[in-house]
């Protein structure tokens, strides 16, 4: 079975800017794959390379074993859910969804039936006659999803599709997308800058920074065993400890990461630190500690006693919680 998408040393340069820089990437068929990174990290350009809106400056791309370079977007069996949804304003919802079928020459009756089925799948049955302008952001998003899925693509690309939705709707859509992906068995490639979204939805994640992939792995791996300082910091704001501090705390002169929620406060044992700030997050309280000049944050579960600012505390962790990343991470 070939990979759904494979990149071999793919670069895309815009003038002197290396938007994508020698990226190797393999996405398995049927997997929910997230491309995670800050804005400008090259994740969206990678998505556009798969869709065919961009062509690589160098390197080789395959989609299900077929060479993709030089193939225009309209000849690729790949569909995209755009960040701004890009619904056609002059067409009603049903015609928007049926657009791909219309282009392929599918008859009117079958088109209507399939569009309605796709709308039902995204829980918008009976919305066909409305214009996109009459829909809410969440509904537009579902229409965009139906419009892409009705073509039965081999790969569905989603470009920050939940970015414009409010928190509650976003959580609901995350769940629905996951259920939909499992039910359809289509490969989903999802671009996001929200690490929580990537961790909760994806089977595997590629973390991007400055046009390169920093690490690829399951959410668990990325979260528990970050390979670099960037990954540790970007995925869930882990504490990145310098080799000096790691040596003082654990006896090894390497960069390390220590998750805020893995740190316990106690009255004896462990190491000493002073509290420099506290902020209440609702389900937890974030504590900033100063340990010989380096800042460490600690997540206290709600209900625990919150020390005063300036108070001296002692902290400790399970040995397995401290993750070493090597001297050069």
């Amino acid at each position, binding site marked *: 079975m070939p990979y759904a998408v494979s990149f071999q040393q793919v670069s895309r340069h815009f003038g002197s800017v290396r938007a994508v820089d020698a990226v190797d990437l393999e996405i398995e068929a049927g997997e929910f794959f997230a491309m995670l990174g800050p804005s400008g990290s090259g994740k969206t350009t990678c998505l556009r390379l798969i869709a065919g809106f961009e062509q690589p400056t160098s390197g080789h791309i395959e989609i299900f074993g077929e060479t993709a370079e030089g193939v225009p977007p*309209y000849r690729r069996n790949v569909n*995209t859910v*755009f960040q701004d949804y*890009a619904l*056609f304003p002059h067409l009603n919802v049903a015609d928007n969804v049926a*657009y791909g079928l219309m282009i392929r020459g599918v008859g009117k009756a079958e088109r209507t039936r399939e569009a309605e089925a796709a709308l039902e799948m995204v829980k918008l049955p009976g919305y066909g006659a409305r214009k996109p302008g009459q829909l809410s952001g969440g509904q537009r998003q579902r229409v965009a999803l139906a419009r892409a899925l009705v073509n039965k693509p081999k790969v569905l690309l989603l470009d920050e599709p939940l970015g414009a939705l409010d928190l509650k709707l976003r959580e609901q859509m995350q769940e629905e997308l996951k259920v939909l992906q499992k039910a359809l068995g289509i490969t989903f490639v999802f671009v996001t800058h929200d690490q929580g979204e990537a961790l909760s939805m994806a089977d595997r994640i590629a973390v991007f920074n400055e046009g390169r992939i920093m690490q690829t792995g399951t959410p668990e791996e990325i979260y528990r065993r970050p390979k670099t300082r960037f990954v540790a910091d970007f995925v869930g704001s882990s504490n990145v400890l310098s080799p000096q501090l790691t040596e003082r705390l654990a006896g090894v002169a390497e960069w390390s990461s220590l998750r805020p929620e893995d740190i316990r406060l106690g009255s004896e044992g462990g190491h000493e630190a002073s509290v420099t700030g506290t902020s209440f997050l609702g389900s937890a309280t974030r504590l900033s500690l100063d340990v010989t000049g380096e800042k460490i944050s600690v997540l206290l579960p709600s209900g625990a006693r919150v020390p005063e600012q300036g108070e001296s505390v002692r902290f400790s962790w399970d040995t397995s919680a401290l993750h070493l990343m090597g001297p050069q991470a």
Partner: protein
Amino acid sequence: MRSDKQSRTPMGLKIAAGAGLAFLHLPILLIFLYAFTTEDKSYQFPPPGLTLKWFAVTWNRPDVWEALGLSVRVASISTVVALVLGTLCAAAISQTRFFGREAISLLVILPIALPGIITGISLRSAFNLAEIPFSFWTIVLGHATFCVVVVYNNAVARFRRVSGSLIEASMDLGADGFQTFRHVILPNIGTALLAGGMLAFALSFDEVIVTTFTAGQQATLPIWMLEELVRPRQRPVTNVVAMVVVLVTFLPILAAYYLTRDGDQISGQGK
């Protein structure tokens, strides 16, 4: 509050506004009135009597039909040329980035800012230099210079609203360039093109200055009217034709206004 909506407009201002509007439009009504006069030597006021016979006389004058036919053909072909070139130009300017884009945008609009007499003289000397005989096609060419601008201005404003991602979405869903134009771009810029085309038609239909310089022996309707006023045969015939011109040019402008009212303003009415 001084800016209270309830406050009364001063009577003097009302009268001034009324007088201004009357000054603008009464002469036009007078033109209409003299189309019905029984007296054909001078514009005597009030007309000694009213008659509809000039409509019949006009109908039977072959020179009127000739001029009208020429004007309609010139305006139609200029509009078609303007629609094709203006749309292509607007697409290039609004959808792509290239060196010299701003300069080209300015150069396209320039003919409408130039006085017609400059356009006319320069075209005439250019035709002379190239030894192109004046004909129907030189008139069309002259009119196309400003018609393109009107179409371009209307189309470019609408093109900006067709976001790039709509075109990408269409391509993503399997449509090639032509299908995307037909199913996505055209429906979105259609009314702007219609409005631009109607304005272009109206502008071409009553154009005098550029036409004087680029026409050979042919007389378009406005030129014919000018000649009639200098050497009148049956004076009210000119008034009847004037009414027709007003209707033929006013209706498209009105239609263009209503078609684009919800969207962009119509650019280029000021020519």
